[in-house]
């Protein structure tokens, strides 16, 4: 080994010695795509889900994704499997995963609801949901996820879980969803899926 390399190695050793709190094996930084591609086996390539209760996540708002993934990790948002998985990621990694999916194009499902599935959905949307989920559920921000073109199976489950007190995002939504029947929730889910 040339002398310069030795001296560099010695310098690194001295530095580590000076800062004993540094871990010996610093965690390598894993790229956004490296972290995010592991999700695609369940959520579809680039987060465009092939259905039905598994939501599309590609093209969602970054702030919303960070909050949801963090809430899975802390348990604030109950889940079947996401809580177990998110234990494996630090805050910076959650932010990287969210950035990756927020940067992807939103891909709506290709299904269109039949008329009798919709029932009173447009009126329900205006009365209960429109103030946050504007433009037929196409709008989105850190508080309100896009719903237009999302899988109806997921939307239905998410609304039921909110109504039944299992999880609500944000909590203020619960008071509104609490007034909805199963049939009304199903109609709304199909309505939003049909908005592309």
């Amino acid at each position, binding site marked *: 080994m040339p002398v310069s390399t030795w001296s560099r190695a010695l310098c690194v050793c001295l530095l580590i010695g000076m800062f004993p709190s540094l871990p010996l094996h610093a965690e390598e930084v894993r*790229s956004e795509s*490296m972290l995010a591609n592991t999700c695609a086996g369940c*959520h579809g390539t680039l987060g465009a889900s092939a259905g*039905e209760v598994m939501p599309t996540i590609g093209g969602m708002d970054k702030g919303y994704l960070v909050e949801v993934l963090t809430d899975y990790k802390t348990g604030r948002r109950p889940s079947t499997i996401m809580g177990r*998985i998110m*234990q*494996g990621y630090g805050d910076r990694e959650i932010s990287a995963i969210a950035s990756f999916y927020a940067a992807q194009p939103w891909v709506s499902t290709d299904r269109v609801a039949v008329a009798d599935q919709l029932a009173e959905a447009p009126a329900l949307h205006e009365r209960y949901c429109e103030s946050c989920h504007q433009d037929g559920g196409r709008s989105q921000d850190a508080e309100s996820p896009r719903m237009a073109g999302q899988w109806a199976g997921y939307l239905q489950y998410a609304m039921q879980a909110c109504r039944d007190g299992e999880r609500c995002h944000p909590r203020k939504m619960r008071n509104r969803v609490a007034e909805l029947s199963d049939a009304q929730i199903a109609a709304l889910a199909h309505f939003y899926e049909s908005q592309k």
Partner: protein
Amino acid sequence: MKTLTRRTFLHASALSTAAVLGGPSLAVHAATPPKARVVVVGGGYGGAIAAKYLRMSDPDIRVTLIEKDSAYVSCPLSNEVLGGERDLASLTFDYRGLTRRGIAVMQDTVIEIDPAQHVVKGAGGNRYNYDKLIVSPGVDYDWAAIEGMSEAVAERIPHAWKAGKQTQILRRQLEAMEDGGVFYIVAPPNPFRCPPGPYERAAQVAHYFSTHKSKSKIVILDAKDAFSKQGLFQAGWQEHYGDMIEWVSGAQGGIIEAIDPETRTLMGSFEEFRGDVINLIPHQKAGALAQTAGLANESGWCPVDQRTFESSIHKDIHVIGDACIAGAMPKSGYSANSQGKVCAAAVVAAINGDAPPAPSYVNTCYSIIAPEHGISVAGVYRLDDGRIVDIPGAGGVSPADADARTRALEQQFALDWFRNITSDMFT
């Protein structure tokens, strides 16, 4: 053919195969020479993903996928075929989606790999030159481990551990079995493909028996003393099927040493078992290609650099999926998917002169115990000192006290897992 250069030969072969498979051949014959040639052998859960993610991350790389069959039949969810809940057509996929992505999909059987010359040889005489080779050869069977067993005997005593004809043989035998019969599942020792598979299979067949031949029994003769998601499976069996399923551990005499296929008798270490239908899942090792190409070590599996999946034996050849030794990761479809992506990123980095990226790996396996009862196991992994290790505190199995709604949701997620992982592979 001698007048053709290798490049035009590959081009011509790709076109003819594309024509056979009925897909468009667009982008296969780009006018500019490729930055590098990557050949992927095996179009399953590992290989299809590696090919696709290579193309997605660097379109200047020429990617050739060599697969022996024109269509792929998924092993995950094939237990539902045995249970009568679905048909094989619902598990069958073609390669047109990958052709559309500009991957040259070749239907060919690889008979030899020449690591020195960087050439893959096909059964029909085709030669495929590569700068980097990724093989995802799946598993092969160690027939000699159980006396009297062979590939020919497996036509009558099916393993159904690769989906397709074998699945149909077993399904027909189960359909033909008299009510009151005994169905034996012989479960292999570790490591093997799909650790929860034999136990989900017992549940799926029990679901069929309970509605069609409820006096029948299922006995699992296991080489092991413990198995994946054991507590959840045993509680689920009891809850849905009472005493229909019996599990005999290795220590209790479940280890099978020989079989007499004529009388359908299994010879255990303590006693003999005569079955009406026998599903013998053989001991396993890396797929045949890994063995002939010298990619496997004395364990029967392929040692790799767990950061890049490059073979520890042959440079520029990467091994992914069930065939490779991947630290704490189980041999599952999702593991193969995750490894395919890590491997593709490492190969792209190497071609572009970059350092291999820091890897991230995940596994997720669902099992369906009953129509509204799904269970899962997840794993999140990182590289530690060259070895894939579990991230402490992450992953694990479904809670034992999950309520009915959670179980029903996990069953739906199992089906969505399948929809999404197969769309990740084939679209």
